[in-house]
């Protein structure tokens, strides 16, 4: 399992190089979206309208941060459970989305789109919202301010620690990590 320091946007070659279990630090611009924002993005795609950010090479972080207290760019900002975005992710992956950050399982249609178009699913530590917020240097709402915490934020992140959970070949750390642990357990 390798370690990579990556910067967004992600190239197709970078994505194909990453394997389940690799650790990554991610820097650059990422976009936030969760349930309600994903619904709107996919409605725009279906209506043939432009999206509020360039999807090609982009990374979406499934998060709804707490409001920024004075002196902070953002409040707590850990990942939300990803399966709720499964209905929408394949459409965005088809348009060139190369990375998703979340936690928890993904459906087969998402993994199939990741294989076909080349995308990777990263895990951030669920419940570590205060720790992760330290990597977020700037935050700006770029779409859907009416959604509050669910608005699309443009985050500038610096060395955000992530783990490759599902790679572009469909290998899955949730299955492999558990299997390896159970195979090597002493008790």
């Amino acid at each position, binding site marked *: 399992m390798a370690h990579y320091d990556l910067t967004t946007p992600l190239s197709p070659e970078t994505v194909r190089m990453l394997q389940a279990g690799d650790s990554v630090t991610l820097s650059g611009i990422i976009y936030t979206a969760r349930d309600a924002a994903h619904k709107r993005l996919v409605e725009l795609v279906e209506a043939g309208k432009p999206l509020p950010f360039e999807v090609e090479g982009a990374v979406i972080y499934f998060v709804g941060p707490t*409001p920024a207290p004075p002196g902070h760019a953002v409040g707590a900002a850990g990942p939300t459970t990803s399966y709720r975005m499964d209905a929408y992710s394949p459409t965005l992956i088809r348009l060139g989305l190369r990375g998703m950050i979340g936690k928890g399982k993904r459906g087969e249609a998402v993994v199939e789109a990741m294989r076909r178009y080349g995308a990777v699913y990263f895990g951030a530590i669920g419940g570590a919202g*205060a720790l992760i917020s330290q990597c977020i240097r700037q935050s700006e709402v770029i779409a859907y301010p009416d959604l509050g915490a669910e608005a699309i934020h443009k985050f500038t992140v610096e060395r955000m620690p992530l783990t490759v959970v599902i790679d572009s070949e469909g290998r899955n750390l949730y299955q492999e990590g558990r299997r390896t642990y*159970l195979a090597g357990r002493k008790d």
Partner: protein
Amino acid sequence: MREIHAEQITEVVARLCSEANRQLPDDVRRTIRAARAAEDWQPACEILDRIIDNFELAGEVPICQDTGMACVFLEIGQEVHITGDLHEAVNRGVAKGYTEGYLRKSVVRDPIFDRVNTGDNTPAMLTIDLVPGDRVTITVAPKGFGSENMSRIAMLRPSDGLAGVKAFVLETVEQAGPNPCPPIMVGVGVGGTFDKAALLAKKALMRPMDDQNPDPNYAALEAELLASINALGIGPQGFGGRTTALAVKVNALPTHIAGLPCAVNINCHVTRHKTEVL
């Protein structure tokens, strides 16, 4: 009769919402540190270290971005008279705590037809019990939905018995896998009616993580379930490891001759609750 103004309750609820989301209870901290010490799988150790860093760092910023629905529990002494509107006082406290405390507002007006944010995290999910005495005990337990969504209830048959309860709890944790941010706390409610089993499970999540069920049968069941869950190998964040659950608590009530309700309420490692007595 002792008199308490509803506004006093507003102030306490507001403070507890803010504090519960910033400071992890001592028993939860102790249990996570003990789990880290007992874990020997390297990826799991690294994640537990970061989880410990996170709760130590929280304060100005909440522990987790899902600052939850505000579950509020009031134990009101029978010899207390509350002046003013109690429900309104609790909701005002939640609104104040979530707004002034820079907490996330995560509540929508209607689950199906009007999913529009209420803007102040109200209404509270309020449970009121009347108890002897002249005090009011107020507990705020913010509940995140990553773990709430992985909770289940089953109306088992009496013939399913102990084995049925164990199987249902394990199946629930297995199905949840990495989704509820393991390591988790598992609250189990058995007996009563459909609704009471769920409430028992929710209240089980507020027991101290390192306590012992006073009933030896249930103490043994809790220990066995914890060992079985931690043999699944799901591990912290689902990347493999020993520490899938930090604690299992089972609460029971008498039930009907025809029934064995079993509710499993899952909480994440950010198991939050704070209590104050008026």
